[in-house]
Structure formats: structure tokens, C-alpha cells
């Protein structure tokens, strides 16, 4: 068995989810190689080489890879894949964008968003917004898989000493180009890897009042999330969304404030270790998954919580 993992990074450092994907690969077993694509990404390749359980890093360093356009990265995966039994990527917008493009070119039916590895060919994945779990067995000779990071323990970022090999990229596919990005800048921990997440919903009422959610998150050293309703209402940007079509989180502590608990939202947070719900409506579905429910007006309860913590 030999596994190639497409590393996710932001041009400066490896995304933490890469360590979880490597954790998933160790459950399949075999040699683990990491593919780092980008521009001036040597420091990232070196960081990948020092991860425990990694035996080789392949670095594709070229300006056409700077913005991770799927059209330019997929052919690299296709070219390398023949030497591997499995190709893994995180089930993030990065991995979801690129891997199916490579899978189609390899004539492979990809397996999306796996949460359990039964054996090298058999995997569990959520379907119907997590309301059913499908166990699927692949008959393809190469398996292309996206991995839900929160379901696998990360490996140690240090302790390895893999070799770094260069992969030379010939040219851009010239199908698409990067124009601009508006990325959220935050001092807070990243949503999908934070130990504590405080999320606000429609009940918060406005962009200004969302500050209360942020203050509580800061008090706990946590990340800030939101329900789809809060994002649609414009209280916070899209990248805050927790749910089936947003981010999936599984922190030690998840505090849902003013969130009713639509199935769509529950699909993104129900694997959290401890769930707290604060809502005025005692019949809100969120209470059916909460370990601790507090029926209260959030504008009374949250300031009190911030003061007493």
C-alpha cells in the first residue's frame, strides 16, 4: 500500500487538517507521501518532511500553482497517482474543488468525506446531511478519497525526516486565473480545529449584537461560528457557517447561542464532545442534542456568562 496526500496550505504554513488526513492514512497503512503544490513553497515542503510517519514529500513549486487552481493541480495528481493505491485530500473547499477533477481524469469514482476506515477498500461516509451513514466498498484500482478531518486524530507535526523530491510543472492549463481574494483575518483559532467554538444564530439579531458571541468566544479562547440563518441575514461572513454545506466542527466544547438547531446545522456540529445550547425557546430542536441546555434570553445569559467565567 502506498498513499499520496494532497497537502493544504495557505502559502505560509500547512493547514492543521493535513495532520488529520495523515492520521487517516496511517489507519490504511503503508508508505505515506505528501504532495505540496504552490509557489515558493519550500518551507512548507520542509515542514511536511518533518511530520512523523511521512516518508517522502513531493514539491511542485511553480507560479502557476500559487492560487491552487484545480485546472493546474489536477494533472499533477493524475500524473503521480499511478504509483499509489490511495490518494487522499481533506474534505475542505480546497480538497473538494481539486480531487474530483483528478478522479474523473483517472476514471475513478471518488469517495467523499469519509469518517471511518474499515479496511483499505471500505469506508463509512455520511449521506443525507448525516442522517444516514453509508458503508461503501470501492472496486477502483486507485482510491481517491476526501477525508473529514475532525473524525481522525492528527499525527505529530514533528519527529519525521522525509526526503523532498522536486516535481517539475510544465505549464498552466490556461483555463482559469486568479483575480482576488477577501479572506477573513482573525486572531482567533481556526474554526475546524478550535477546542472551543461559540456559534450564534438568527436569535442574535444583528451584525452589531454578534459582538456578544465574539466576546464569549474570546473569553474562552475559542473560535466563532454561525448558523446558516445568521450568515444569510448578513450578521457574519460565509466562512463562519457551521453545517452540512458549511464547515464541520467537533470541538471539546460547542456553545450554540440563539440557534434553533435545523438538521442542516446539527450535521455540522453534533460530533462535538460537549454541546451547550442557550435559547429562549424551550422547544428548540437544538436542546435535543445539547448536553446542557439553558432556556434564557441570550442577552441576559451571555453577558452574565462572560462576567462569571
Amino acid at each position, binding site marked *: 500500500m502506498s498513499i499520496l496526500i494532497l497537502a493544504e496550505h*495557505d502559502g505560509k504554513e500547512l493547514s492543521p487538517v493535513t495532520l488529520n488526513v495523515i492520521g487517516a492514512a496511517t489507519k490504511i497503512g503503508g508508505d505515506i507521501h505528501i504532495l505540496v503544490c504552490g509557489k515558493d513553497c519550500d518551507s512548507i515542503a520542509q515542514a511536511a518532511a518533518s511530520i512523523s510517519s511521512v516518508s517522502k514529500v513531493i514539491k511542485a513549486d511553480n507560479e502557476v500553482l500559487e*492560487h491552487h487552481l484545480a*485546472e493546474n493541480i*489536477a494533472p499533477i495528481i493524475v500524473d503521480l497517482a499511478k504509483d499509489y493505491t490511495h490518494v487522499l485530500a481533506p474534505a*475542505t473547499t*480546497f480538497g*473538494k*474543488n481539486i480531487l*474530483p*477533477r483528478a*478522479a*474523473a*481524469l483517472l*476514471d*475513478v*469514482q*471518488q*469517495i*467523499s*468525506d469519509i469518517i471511518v476506515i474499515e479496511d483499505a477498500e471500505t469506508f463509512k461516509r*455520511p*449521506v*443525507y*446531511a448525516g*442522517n*444516514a*451513514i453509508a*458503508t*461503501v466498498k470501492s*472496486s*477502483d484500482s486507485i482510491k481517491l478519497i476526501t477525508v473529514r478531518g475532525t473524525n481522525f486524530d492528527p499525527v505529530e507535526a514533528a519527529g519525521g525526516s522525509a526526503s523532498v523530491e522536486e516535481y517539475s510543472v510544465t505549464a498552466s492549463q*490556461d*483555463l*482559469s*486565473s*486568479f483575480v482576488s*481574494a*477577501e*479572506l*477573513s483575518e482573525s486572531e482567533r483559532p481556526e474554526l*475546524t480545529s478550535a477546542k472551543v467554538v461559540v456559534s450564534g444564530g438568527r436569535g442574535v439579531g444583528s451584525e452589531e449584537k454578534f459582538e456578544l458571541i465574539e466576546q464569549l468566544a474570546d473569553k*474562552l479562547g475559542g473560535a466563532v461560528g454561525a448558523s446558516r440563518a445568521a450568515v*444569510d441575514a448578513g450578521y457574519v*461572513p*460565509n*466562512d463562519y457557517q457551521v453545517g*452540512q*454545506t458549511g464547515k464541520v466542527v467537533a470541538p471539546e*466544547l460547542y456553545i450554540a447561542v440563539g440557534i434553533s438547531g435545523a438538521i442542516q446545522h446539527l450535521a455540522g456540529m453534533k460530533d462535538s464532545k*460537549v*454541546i451547550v445550547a442557550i435559547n429562549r425557546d424551550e422547544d428548540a430542536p437544538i*436542546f435535543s442534542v*445539547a*448536553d*446542557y441546555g*439553558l*432556556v434564557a434570553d441570550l442577552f441576559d445569559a451571555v453577558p452574565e*456568562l462572560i462576567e*462569571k*467565567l
Partner: protein
Amino acid sequence: MKILVPIKRVVDYNVKIRVKSDQSGVDLANVKMSVNPFDEIAVEEAVRLKEAGKATEIVAVTIGPEKAQEQLRTAMAVGADRGILVQTDQPIDLGGVEPLAVAKTLKAIIEKESPDLVIMGKQSIDDDSNQTGQMLAALLGWAQGTFASKLEIEDSSAKVTREIDGGLETISVNLPAIVTTDLRLNEPRYAKLPDIMKAKKKQLDVLDPSELGFSYEPRLNVVSVSEPEERKGGIKVASVDELIEKLKNEAKVI
């Protein structure tokens, strides 16, 4: 400009699904079926482009059972000009027609129809794979603009703003291209009764997959489909003080 909009018949998003007791799949008998919500957004975007004078024809395509004609009629009621059904009795949610096979089928139709743009949902809410658009773009050798929250058509290209984990990213894609929709691209309209009546007269072609050379043998064997582990609700606390006490001493998370 001609726009092709692939859509899918899925369980309505308000339905609480049930897993079959023999674990062979999800029970879809007598369950309300609808157009996949992301595909409704795709249809709406195409209709808006036509209303803005940028598109001339919208063709809706689906793969599914005979009853999937209902979803094509819905798309035509909001503005698609005609519909194509590739009719199959294979399951379309799990263990039947898979994303790669859908992409191959759509490629065959695109080769006949020659659209300038394909707009489709980023994922269907049954299988949740999020693959078909990217696969179709790959098979055609076209550009892809996935998870779109904004779409601007220019002369021979389109600007696509994408919802990504870090925020928003805008890319330019050469046309023809595949664009997959995210939730905030637009708010789909409801069909008006006169338009529903008119849609019944619009052209709807039914094709057999074998005419296109497909048999839909699944590559992924669905071993079983089970209920997720039920998360039990806990307790209600009476006050903020009690909540803090429980989090400190019982759950030990703060």
C-alpha cells in the same frame, strides 16, 4: 449564449428520512421529492441571465426515473426553455448512478447541445458527494468555478466569486465553463400557476442511457446504510451559575 442546467430529483429538504430496516438504503417510498435545492439556485441564475439579455436558451437536463419529468417541469415553469430526461430505473441516490457516470452522461449531452455555460448545484442533498461539476469540467477539459456566490459574464470569460473556507475568492474562467452554485448565489423564485401550465407544453425529450452508451454499473458497492449514532440530549440547567458549575466539574471542559 446557451446555458445547460443539470438538475436532480431528490428527497425534499424538509423530509426527515428513514433508513430501511434491512440497511439496504434510504426509504423513498411515498416521500415528497423535489428539485435539489442547489439546482434550484442554478436554474434561477440561468433565468436571471436570460432576463438580463445575456442568455438566449436554457436547457434543463436530468438523469432519473420517469417521475423526474416533474422536476424538469418545475425547472421549465421558472424559465428553462426545454428539458431532457435520461431515463433510468437505477437508484440515483446511493449505489446506482454515481457522480462519475452522471458526469459522463452530461458530457455526451453537452457534445450534442454545445452550450456556452453549464450551471449546476455544488452537491445534491441525498448523496452529498460534491463531485459532479468538477468531474464534468475535467472530462470536457473546461474550466470550473465551484461553490459560486456571484457570477458575472464577460465576453469570452466569466468572473466567479467562490465561497471558500478562508472567505471569498474570485477567479476568472474561460468560457465554456462549469459553474457550481453555493447557497448565497441567489434566492430562487417560486413558479407562478400560469407558468406551471405553460411549462406543460414545453418540449421534453426522453433518452435511454443505452442510446448514449451507458449502463450505470456502480463502482462503489454500498455494503450497508445505517442510522447515525443517536446523540442523546442531556439536561436543562436553571441558571448561568449552574451551567458554569457543570462545565467545570462535570464535563471538565473549562
